[in-house]
């Protein structure tokens, strides 16, 4: 990987690409569809701590949600979801894993959010595991779901009835 220091193309997380789309105005958010429930954002380690996309994600979330509450600690100091580094696939160790991430649960509960936005598949799996184990009432949402639900769809793209 380190051998490819200079590449002829950019590599990005969809979040970063959505940010570009939103900033350049190619994708518009429908203000009527904005999400009203309190949301919070899980910062995935590999994208925040190792790619620095924190502000871009916050921009997307602020654009699409009305009530955004930060977790504390946030950005590159956020706690890990306990799935990304290979723990995601360990089904036998599920309760051990979930017990090992009580602080994440407390962190999410402290925000009082109803929806946690997880911009990463592994974080989604990890949070699903701890929600299943600790039984706390939050919903998970991906960034793409968020955008599909709130984006403004031009008239000519709407399907014909019937």
């Amino acid at each position, binding site marked *: 990987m*380190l051998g490819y*220091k200079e590449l002829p193309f950019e590599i990005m997380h969809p979040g970063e690409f959505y940010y570009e789309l939103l900033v350049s105005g190619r994708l518009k958010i429908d203000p009527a569809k904005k999400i009203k429930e309190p949301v919070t954002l899980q910062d995935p380690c590999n994208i*925040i701590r190792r*790619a*620095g*996309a924190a502000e871009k994600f916050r921009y997307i979330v602020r654009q699409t949600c009305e009530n955004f509450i930060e977790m504390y600690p946030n950005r*590159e100091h956020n706690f890990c979801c306990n799935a990304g580094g290979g723990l995601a696939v360990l089904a036998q160790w599920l309760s051990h894993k979930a017990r090992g991430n009580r602080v994440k649960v407390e962190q999410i509960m402290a925000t009082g959010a109803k929806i946690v936005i997880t911009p990463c598949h592994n974080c989604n799996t990890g949070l699903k595991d701890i929600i299943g184990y600790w039984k706390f009432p939050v919903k998970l949402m991906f960034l793409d779901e968020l955008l599909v639900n709130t984006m403004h769809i031009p008239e000519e793209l709407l399907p014909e009835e019937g």
Partner: protein
Amino acid sequence: MGFLESVALYSFLRGPMVWLAFIIFIFGSIYRIYTLINLAKKEKVVLPFINIKAAIKSYLHWLIPFASRNWRLKPYFTIFTFLFHTGLIFVPIFLYAHNALWYESWGISWWTLPEIVADVWTIFVIIGCIFFIGRRIFDPTVRFVTNYADFIFVFICLFTFLTGFLAHYQWVLPYKAMLNLHILFGEIMLIAIPFTRLTHMYYFFFTRAWMASQAASWKTKDW
């Protein structure tokens, strides 16, 4: 007691031993740094990725108290560690009595600390040592990862400063015995730097630089 007070020991410690200690300290340190950089050259991914600007930023954030998140999370530890480490470096260099020795030997001298500041700072270093030893004994997290070597080099620092302080006020032992002990421990400390984990004194700058460069390449910060 007679041996500790003897002039023979004093002149040995003041004469050849000082030279030995400084030579071992300086050349040992150079050797350690040189071998590390040489090894880093062999690993192709280390040196090309070093980012000096990020490294300097990172040094500043970790060398200023409360400038990084971990320092803020542990305020007591931060206060003790900064008083201890600054004292450990600056008190020996700027102490009036040490300056007199430099002047005696080579005719050089520089600005010195006022006596009261030096005394208070020395006491802080001693308290810092005791704090670190206490941490290693009573904090279960630290105790789990501590081995004897960790105690030894805290004790070396503690004895050096304690004997120096006591010698200055001529308490407990006769002045000459205390002074001899003080010089002995000081020289042991100098010799120990390249061989024990006291090397963190200069390895700090390398490991920090590497982490800072990595963090910079990930567009994030490491404090």
